[in-house]
């Protein structure tokens, strides 16, 4: 589903964010990416969505080499990928329902699809009673659920999560993780960058550890790591 083949990424200012990274993530996997700050986790995810482009190596996503993908095809690539971030990135002036519906409307889904899909997905994340609230009227955990609903409403092949629990307390974190597991059970490949040792250690999923832009560990049922980060 996602394959990095000797990928190197250097930002302007000659920061080497990824160095010769080779990784293969299969359909339906649940993968944690761990590593200290600045080790290249976010860069890894941004290469998958072609928000950044590698200058060496190949990035294969859903059977396509992303680096050589024509610009007009990039939106269609992204329709297969849901994204969740630490800071939620919801639209503050739109209701919960509208935030999720927006993601379908702007890729041209017909209205009847929007009207059936959105309540369904909001039920999945447990927000069916708060559809008309604004994001500001929700707790952080609830806001992240809206963001997950938005990322998943189009049933993407891949869900990328960049420290989705970074702003949440442990109890709320558990809820979000159960949600992501649920989404993974539907067949969606989940890749999550995190600093949360406890999640990684309790869930025992595949762990890719990065340091200074390189993959230093890739374990099938891994733990967070030996050292404190």
């Amino acid at each position, binding site marked *: 589903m996602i394959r990095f083949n000797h990928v190197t990424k250097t930002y302007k200012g000659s920061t080497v964010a990824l160095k010769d990274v080779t990784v293969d993530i299969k359909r339906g996997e649940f993968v944690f990416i761990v590593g200290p700050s600045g080790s290249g986790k976010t860069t890894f995810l941004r290469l998958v969505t072609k928000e950044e482009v590698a200058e060496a190596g190949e990035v294969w996503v859903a059977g396509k080499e992303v680096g050589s993908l024509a610009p*007009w095809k990039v*939106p269609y*690539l992204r329709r*297969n*990928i849901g994204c969740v971030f630490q800071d939620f*990135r919801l639209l503050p002036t739109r209701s919960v329902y509208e935030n999720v519906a927006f993601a379908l409307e*702007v*890729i041209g889904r017909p*209205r009847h699809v929007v009207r059936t899909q959105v309540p369904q997905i909001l039920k999945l994340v447990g927000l069916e009673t708060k559809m008309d609230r604004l994001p500001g009227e929700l707790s952080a955990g609830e806001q992240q659920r809206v963001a997950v609903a*938005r990322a998943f409403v189009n049933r993407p092949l891949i869900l990328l999560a960049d420290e989705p629990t970074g702003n949440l307390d442990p109890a709320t974190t558990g809820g979000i993780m159960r949600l992501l597991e649920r989404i993974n059970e539907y067949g969606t490949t989940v890749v999550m960058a995190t600093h949360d040792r406890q999640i990684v250690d309790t869930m025992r999923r595949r762990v890719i550890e990065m340091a200074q832009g390189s993959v230093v560990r890739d374990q099938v049922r891994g733990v967070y790591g030996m050292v404190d980060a």
Partner: protein
Amino acid sequence: MSSAYLLRETGGNLVRNIVMTVAAVVTMAVSLSALGGVLIMRQAINKATVQWQGGVQLAIFMNANASGQEIRAIGDELHAMVPQEIQKYWWVDKERAYAEFKQMFAGEPAFIKVMSVGQMPPSYRVVPARAQNVAQLAGQFDNQPGVHNVGYPQQAINQMLSHFSTLRTVALVLAAGVMVGAIALIINTIQLAIFSRRREVAVMKLVGATNWFIRVPFMLEGLAHGLAGACAAFMLTYFSRGTIASFVGSDSLNFGAPLYVSPHEAVFTGVFILIVGMLVGMVGSAFAVKRFLAV
């Protein structure tokens, strides 16, 4: 892309930056009005000069109450000058003059109603044998009994054209200058709209909205500016077409009648203005979108 979506997004953008929107639309209207003014003046001139085409270079207007004897005297004098000095001439009586008048002011019934056949000045239309003789012929007939005046178009037309050319230069410079301002305002307004919607734009890119889907509402906003400015300019030039036409000069050729542009000719100009306005709005917003909306 549903029309409801476009309407909502474009409308929302327009209202959000109401001050900038108004500024952009007003400058656009001023510029296009100047452009429209030039076109109206040109139409008026074409109309005023059209009856002098076909070789007639001199019209001897008789007084409306000139006696038959006075009219015959002029006719005899003209007759004696054919063919050495005059190639041909003919008589336009009150009825013919009235018919010409009606034709020229078709579409303005109120205007026609106040004039009657009896008030129309009859005239001799003269085609001189040599164009250089026009001035001399005019002088010869000007002071004869029963003659009201001699229409001497070449000179008057030249004068009108030179007057028009000055006005046109001034108006076109004004139109171009203000147009630059209007375009700058449109670009700036679109830039603001893009900025105030950067969150939405970021989400759209994230979930895979196509570039055109993201761009179109902003481009429609520019189109709306152009269209609104053009509509205002259309109304302005349409309803003040008489005043604008009279800037070029009152028409000494047609018994002092004002220069005149018919409603449907003004509409023709208006449509041109609308097209220019929409094009400028589209191009301005396309530029802003290309420049400020990295997709």
